């Protein structure tokens, strides 16, 4: 008989984290988030179409060659190096030394919105300039979206399911949700789950031509979600990987989890397939019902919400309306924050939100909106300002909220282990 996991009670916990971010590796990432610092600065190489220097959130304090120099992996592209580096760090953090048998039941899910755009762009440029005879056979395999997950599996010998998923700016949340489902479906005991995207000239051009980049009001370039004077996206990059594990598996190893991934939700809000939904479309009814099914009702405990608000007029207004409705009367007690003011916006950023969520649950502290000068007057949410103190006994639950273009909203619900 087929198993029926819908009746089973498998719990999934987070036991390890690895981060390659514009704020630095894990300790710096968390310290700087809590103190409201950001990793945004002028770009060395990118310019806007108007010729002005770009403002970006680059991963700089990280030298890939220091982390990865295995001969079989020498042709890895930069995004793959970030993912492999984050994967190694997460496994070390989880104290998981995978034997061959254990690696057979360890898989991975990597989310990415665009993948290795840098080398794909170079491949096409060369093909168009010099013809098919000189196309680069060595970089072509790297242009495939699942190259990072493939390299990471080779590096660590992971023979469980190996999945790469994409869903625009919700790619990180989707990766975590998919890994959770794979464990609950008994496809693996351990899943490395996370996401990454790289700041590529072509992606920068797309956002620039769409008029989405800060400063699209001609003022100074910055990223300040929920701010009255927010003026567009600052593009970022990076990778974060989390070790998800069946709770019994972690307990048998004697490992103290960071937190439990309680579950996830998905709902569509009306939107054109290529844009964020309008504020009028905010109706989180399905999400609220699914969260209630996971045992979450807003206001019962002190909660933190890590939103995808990215400092655009449109998305931040939608997130404000959607979260206000979702939280209802609890909107005055739940604290709302976003990482995009610190690490910029990119497809895989949701995995960093997930990493911050479990760090908030373990440490009792929270990522603060360091750039926030004046909250948008239409925003009644209790924002994580620089002076916002966490609840005396820490947070009970953290909700990660994602609204990608195309209106496929997702949330992840974490709670104390």
């Amino acid at each position: 008989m087929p198993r029926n996991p819908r009746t089973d009670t498998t719990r999934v916990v987070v036991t390890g984290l690895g981060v390659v971010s514009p704020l630095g590796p894990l300790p710096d990432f968390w310290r700087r988030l809590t103190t409201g610092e950001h990793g945004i600065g002028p770009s060395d190489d990118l310019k806007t179409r108007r010729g002005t220097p770009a403002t970006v959130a680059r991963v700089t304090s990280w030298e890939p060659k220091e982390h990865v120099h295995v001969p079989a992996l020498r042709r890895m592209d930069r995004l793959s190096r970030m993912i492999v580096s984050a994967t190694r760090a997460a496994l070390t953090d989880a104290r998981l030394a995978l034997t061959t048998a254990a690696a057979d039941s360890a898989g991975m899910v990597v989310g990415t919105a665009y993948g290795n755009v840098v080398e794909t762009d170079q491949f096409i440029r060369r093909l168009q300039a010099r013809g098919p005879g000189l196309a680069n056979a060595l970089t072509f395999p790297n242009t495939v979206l699942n190259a990072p997950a493939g390299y990471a599996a080779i590096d660590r010998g992971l023979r469980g399911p190996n999945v790469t998923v994409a869903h625009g700016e919700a790619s990180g949340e989707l990766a975590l949700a998919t890994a959770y489902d794979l464990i609950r479906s008994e496809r693996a005991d351990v899943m490395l789950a996370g996401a990454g995207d790289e700041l590529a000239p072509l992606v920068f051009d797309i956002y620039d031509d769409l008029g989405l980049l800060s400063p699209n009001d001609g003022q100074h370039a910055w990223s300040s979600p929920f701010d009255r004077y927010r003026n567009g996206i600052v593009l970022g990059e990076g990778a974060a990987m989390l070790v998800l594990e069946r709770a019994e598996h972690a307990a048998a190893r004697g490992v103290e989890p960071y937190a439990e991934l309680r579950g996830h939700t998905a709902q569509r809000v009306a939107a054109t397939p290529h844009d964020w939904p309008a504020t009028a479309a905010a109706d989180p009814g399905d999400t609220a019902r699914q969260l209630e099914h996971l045992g979450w009702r807003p206001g019962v405990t002190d909660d933190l919400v890590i939103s995808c608000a990215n400092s655009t007029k449109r998305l931040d207004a939608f997130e404000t309306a959607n979260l206000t409705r979702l939280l209802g009367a609890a909107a005055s007690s739940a604290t709302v924050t976003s990482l995009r003011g610190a690490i910029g916006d990119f497809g895989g950023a949701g995995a960093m939100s997930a990493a911050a969520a479990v760090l908030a649950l373990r440490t009792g502290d929270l990522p603060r909106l360091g750039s926030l000068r004046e909250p948008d007057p239409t925003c009644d949410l209790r924002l994580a300002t620089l002076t916002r103190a966490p609840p005396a006994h820490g947070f009970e639950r953290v909700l990660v909220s994602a609204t990608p273009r195309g209106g496929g909203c997702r949330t992840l619900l974490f709670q104390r282990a």
Partner: protein
Amino acid sequence: MRADAAGRVVVTGLGTVNPLGTSTPAFGSALRAGTCAISPLTLFDTTGFRSVIGAQVQDIESVPLPAHVSTALRRRLSRADVFALGAAMEALADSGLDSTAPTERLGVALGGTTGGMLRTERCLQDRTNDGRRYRANALVGAPVSASADVVAQTLGIAGPRLTVSTACSSSAMSLGIALDWIRLGQCDAVLAGGSESLCATVFAGFNALHALSREPCRPFDRQRSGLSLGEGAAIMVLEDATHALARGARIHAELLDYGASADAHHLTAPHPEALGAVLAMRRALAHANLAPSDIDYVNAHGTGTPLNDASEITALHEVFDAAGGALAVSSTKSAVGHTLGAAGAIEALVTVLAVRDGFIPATVTLDEPEDPTLDFVPRTSRTASLRCALSNSYGFGGNNTSLVIGRAAESTH
């Protein structure tokens, strides 16, 4: 009957747009007739390539789109989006799931690898030719995840949405994940499959790897010399069996389970002992509670490259030899080409038709079998009653997925 249906997932809708047909009945007929759709490509300039052939969808204009799709959106749709929409609409209509069903219990899980790459190439050509004409915002719908967004928003499907991109196993994995969604109670039904459009970039990549065949690909043939690329989409409605039975739906077949693994060996070369492929098949059988002897047919990955087919033969012997008898194995890539991100779904659809209609599709270009101990069903399809079948998909990165598909009569009694 209700109790038996618990946890089972059945196929209640079929849709496809591919080089052999722009509907499932047309595709099924061409498949049984042994037609090969691989011919000279016209979609892009093939000057300078080792091979000039592939399996191209010739009449994309005949793919119906919903009337309410605006002209502005229509202009932004990639070929992969159009294939996906056409296949999704056919599958939904075939399933009989009407618009009164709660759409938040309906999900979309697609696989693909390059999305709107063809459009990206044209945009980047503008950048090279004349920087003033270059408009990168034309690429807003280019990511591989766009097709799932287009399908969900255009057809108003409100449940979970996902795009898998694991190269050539993408849409086998999306079907597997959709099965898990239903078993986990997240959905009553899922539009699951994949879509892929031919493009010069991928053609050039395989060309540079010396992987393209100059003649239509010949999987499992001693004379095989590479693969033939193709394009298209296949999407099916996977549905909770209890839900399907309650509404009296027509059940085409049952998706019994799947197995997934990684080689953890090399980004492009298969494992020499086919370790990952063996793991995927064994996991699929174990999850489905089946023995190798329960499998009557394997729709192989069978790309036609020397390495892939040799490795897959090794895997088939490892898994099936103890079962005895000559296993029927065929590669329908010989007819529709290698459709990359759509291949897993197109071949799963072939396998559904095979168990439903009782036939084994041929390896239509095969003359000299690489391994005489296996039955590769050369040239001509044949009638056969099939209980259960496997559909194998392997991809760059070392991803392996095997789907187990069973006849409906076996599964829902």
